[in-house]
């Protein structure tokens, strides 16, 4: 298994800088100096003054009084991290999130499509910079541990080819291993300070000293792959919004207003994901205790609120709603990438060239133009076959 590790240092700080442009100087994230909460993240300037994530905010303010203290975002940074994981889904099916700012990708197969791991790593870094505005380090190796160590030392990509694991790990200190303090002390007493020294011992020696932990130590120091595979990440297939009315909704105007509000939020989420939806399902809870549900499928995927609202209101008007609505749930599904087809040939000269070849072959074989582009014709034509026209490519 080949693993790519994506390490985004100071993830909360980078997200804050993305959202609030112009943040300069030492920064501490977590709350105000008077809050009884720990530091979530801090800038390098604050770090130079001794501020560390996890320490109380009051202590951080003593160490770096001139720092700007930012409260943590509502809901943390999970949403931003989910967005990053979603974008990473374009590169690998198997993705594991270790923590916010650290993810592993199984790139055993995907590196073949990118003409090498170095290029794949560069593409990952470029995507994170372009789409998310985040600076990341990418490391690749035979195991999660190896890839993570490579990512921490990457600028911005570091590939550890198979067979060179020991050479890469040898100079690293033992602190990089996830060890108990007791084992660390015993190793220090034995004069073992680097992974190279540890790997020079036999597995039997370490097992006799530390039991099962000794074996895993020896394996990690030698860059031996773990057995656990990276699981497949379930893809998000729906955007759901639920609303409970303050007062029962009795008129169509009020229902439209409430549904419009939920669609606003849903469309914003779709836009954030870069997706359009094709199906809408709406479930209504009525004051009488009944539940009504209807589904509608749109002609083409969209992320525009107006069109969706029109369709939903038209569907609702045909439902036998006999009492006021107390709440509803909207589910948008059938998600597809917005503008995927339009951009199919853009920026892909190789594909356009292949298309040209196909066109020449078909023309030579059939002697007349055979490749056409379907374009919108008379949009509001009453005769359906006039709504689209064929244009020669």
């Amino acid at each position, binding site marked *: 298994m080949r693993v790519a590790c994506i390490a985004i240092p100071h993830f909360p700080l980078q997200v804050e800088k993305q959202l609030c442009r112009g943040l300069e100087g030492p920064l501490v994230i977590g709350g105000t100096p008077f809050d009884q909460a720990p530091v979530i993240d801090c800038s390098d300037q604050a770090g130079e003054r001794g501020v560390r994530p996890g320490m109380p905010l009051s202590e951080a303010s003593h160490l770096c009084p001139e720092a700007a203290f930012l409260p943590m975002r509502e809901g943390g940074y999970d949403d931003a991290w989910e967005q990053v994981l979603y974008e990473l889904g374009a590169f690998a099916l198997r993705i594991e999130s270790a923590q916010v700012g650290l993810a592993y990708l199984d790139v055993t197969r995907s590196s073949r499509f990118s003409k090498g791991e170095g290029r794949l790593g560069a593409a990952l870094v470029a995507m994170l910079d372009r789409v998310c505005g985040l600076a990341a380090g990418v490391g690749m190796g035979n195991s999660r541990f190896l890839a993570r160590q490579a990512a921490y030392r990457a600028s911005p990509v570091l590939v550890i080819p198979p067979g060179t694991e020991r050479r890469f790990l040898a100079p690293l200190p033992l602190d990089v291993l996830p060890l108990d303090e007791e084992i660390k002390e015993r190793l220090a007493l034995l004069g073992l300070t680097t992974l190279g020294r540890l790997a020079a011992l036999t597995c039997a020696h370490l097992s006799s000293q530390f039991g099962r932990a000794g074996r895993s130590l020896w394996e990690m120091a030698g860059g031996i792959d773990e057995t656990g595979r990276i699981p497949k990440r379930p893809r998000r297939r729906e955007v759901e919004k639920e609303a409970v009315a303050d007062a029962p909704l009795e008129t169509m105007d009020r229902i439209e207003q409430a549904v419009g509000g939920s669609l606003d939020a849903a469309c914003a989420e779709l836009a954030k994901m870069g997706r359009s939806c094709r199906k809408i399902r709406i479930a209504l809870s009525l004051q009488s205790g009944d539940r009504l549900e209807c589904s509608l499928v749109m002609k083409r995927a969209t992320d525009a609120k107006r069109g969706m609202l029109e369709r939903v209101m038209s569907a609702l008007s045909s439902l036998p709603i006999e009492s006021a609505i107390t709440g509803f749930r909207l589910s948008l599904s059938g998600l597809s990438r917005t503008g995927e087809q339009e951009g199919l040939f853009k920026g892909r000269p190789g594909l356009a060239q292949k298309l040209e070849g196909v066109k020449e072959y078909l023309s030579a074989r059939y002697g*007349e*133009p*055979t490749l*056409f582009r*379907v374009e919108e014709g008379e949009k509001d034509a*009453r*005769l*359906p*076959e006039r*709504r*689209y026209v*064929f244009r020669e490519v």
Partner: protein
Amino acid sequence: MRVCRREGMSSGRCRGIVSPYEPERIEVYAPKGRPEAVRVRKRQTRVREVLNVWRIDEEWWRRPVSRLYFSLELTSGARVTVFEDLATGAWYRQGWV
């Protein structure tokens, strides 16, 4: 894009390529003017219900278009939209409405 060789209403250079919107010639059994059975691709199916009927008349100044559309539910459960070209009396199935 489909390449079809069936008889359709399209003509000219694109006659080999039929858009999903292009009407397809079919046989309809309609003794009283309303479809009772349709034959699509050599398979005959009875009509369970006529769901909707509407008429389109256009372009009286050029080549008149006069169609009587029927939205049908077949005994197989499928829903199809067919129309009678009132100028020629021929029946067509509309791919997509």
